């Protein structure tokens, strides 16, 4: 077997990978930001709402968690525009999908965090005369954040990796860049080695940064 590794072609097209990585990060950051808003709002709503609302929110969460992301991406990009009169780019479509997807996971993280805030702290907030809104902002959310930080970090890393699914609808992120180089140079081993290293490095950097934040908060527990 005379296959010799040759990275020259990869370096020649490295701009595809670098640009892809930046786009992957952009997709992740925007989707997670929207997902956090969805997750927080629905989690707070869930813990204070009645049965009907809880059922609807739980339905959304269960639907998203039980359908593969790639299918959701197809549904939103190819399926939705054929049913309703709506047009969007692949990138916008993917951000919408990943936002809904991360929202569902984050609802669960935030909800369990909110429910884990000790009752005594809420009683103490009531006893000094805080209104429900103040109890949420000044007592419940800060404690919830500390409780959920480790789970949040894991979810963020996971969602960053999920951006690779965008390649199936030709969004030129990192995995798509790798495929493009593969198709045009046939250096399959080299390109995927490099891309794997890039995902790994970025993932670890994110994890490291998030652990630093965790440690800071843990000190202030």
């Amino acid at each position: 077997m005379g296959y010799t590794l040759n990275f020259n072609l990869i370096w020649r097209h490295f701009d595809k990978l670098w640009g892809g990585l930046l786009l992957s990060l952009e997709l992740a950051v925007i989707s997670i930001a929207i997902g956090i808003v969805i997750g927080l709002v629905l989690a707070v709503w869930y813990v204070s709402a009645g049965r009907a609302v809880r059922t609807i929110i739980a339905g959304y969460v269960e639907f998203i968690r039980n359908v593969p992301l790639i299918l959701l991406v197809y549904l939103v990009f190819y399926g939705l525009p054929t049913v309703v009169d709506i047009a969007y780019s692949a990138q916008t479509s993917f951000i919408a999908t990943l936002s809904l997807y991360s929202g569902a996971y984050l609802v669960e993280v935030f909800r369990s965090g909110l429910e884990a805030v000790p009752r005594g702290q809420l009683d103490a907030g009531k006893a000094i005369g805080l209104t429900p809104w103040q109890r949420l902002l000044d007592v419940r959310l800060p404690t919830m954040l500390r409780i959920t930080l480790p789970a949040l970090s894991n979810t963020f890393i996971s969602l960053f990796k999920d951006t690779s699914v965008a390649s199936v609808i030709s969004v030129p992120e990192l995995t798509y860049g790798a495929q493009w180089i593969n198709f045009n140079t046939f250096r399959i081993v080299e390109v995927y080695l490099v891309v794997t290293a890039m995902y790994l490095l970025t993932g670890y950097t994110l994890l490291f940064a998030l652990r630093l934040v965790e440690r800071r908060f843990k000190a202030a527990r």
Partner: protein
Amino acid sequence: MSNASHQNPALLDVTEVSKAFGSVEVLRSVSLQVTRGEVVTIIGPSGSGKTTLLRCVNFLESYDSGSIRIDGKEVGYRETGTRQRRSERDLAAMRAETGMVFQSFNLFPHLTAAGNIMLGLRKVRGKSNAEARTIAEHWLGRVGLAHKADSLPAELSGGQQQRVGIARAVAMEPKILLLDEITSALDPELVGEVLEVVRSLAEDGMTMLMVTHEMAFARDASSRIVFMADGGVSAVGPPAEILAAGFDNERLRSFLARFRASHF
């Protein structure tokens, strides 16, 4: 002092309050008055409704019937017509007039000792940061923790946490302070420092209603003792009378006998 207390209407007036959790009656037509400046202690076996009664006074628990009034104002329910729960805003405003100290301290873990005290002052009393800080430091000094203002609860001992808990409650200048078994979660050697703070507040004339198992403290610090059993008030009277071995109440006698047996 006892003359004055006869002239003043009760600051806290609990009248025939009943409450059930499902089919379990935890409070059976409880009536109890606390006059301004008085220290009233509730004793009784666990499950007798002491803590529930205390939690009804600042409406951490609702009650099914009867009435609780602080300074003439009905707690928890509107005074017009049918029994209707007050708005959350109203409830919050009323709770700000009663202070509560908890068995498990319940400090806000993300805030420093001073921050715990300042939260209510800023958000509820509308004080500026600087004003709130000054008040917090004053009360931390009163409970002997001036040097711990910037410590987080996790860095404090149980006794210190509880003293911050007391400072947090009294800094709001409540009309009445509710103390719910505040030394029960403490190691024995830390109980004294907390009770000392309570004693000094009593000397300042703070009106207090407390649930405690510290009989010696109850005897020394309270104006009256209420003995609760099975959700009802079984006996009320001055400490010397209630804690006397020969008091004419079988349940109280057996409670005290069992209590002495387990504590000495």
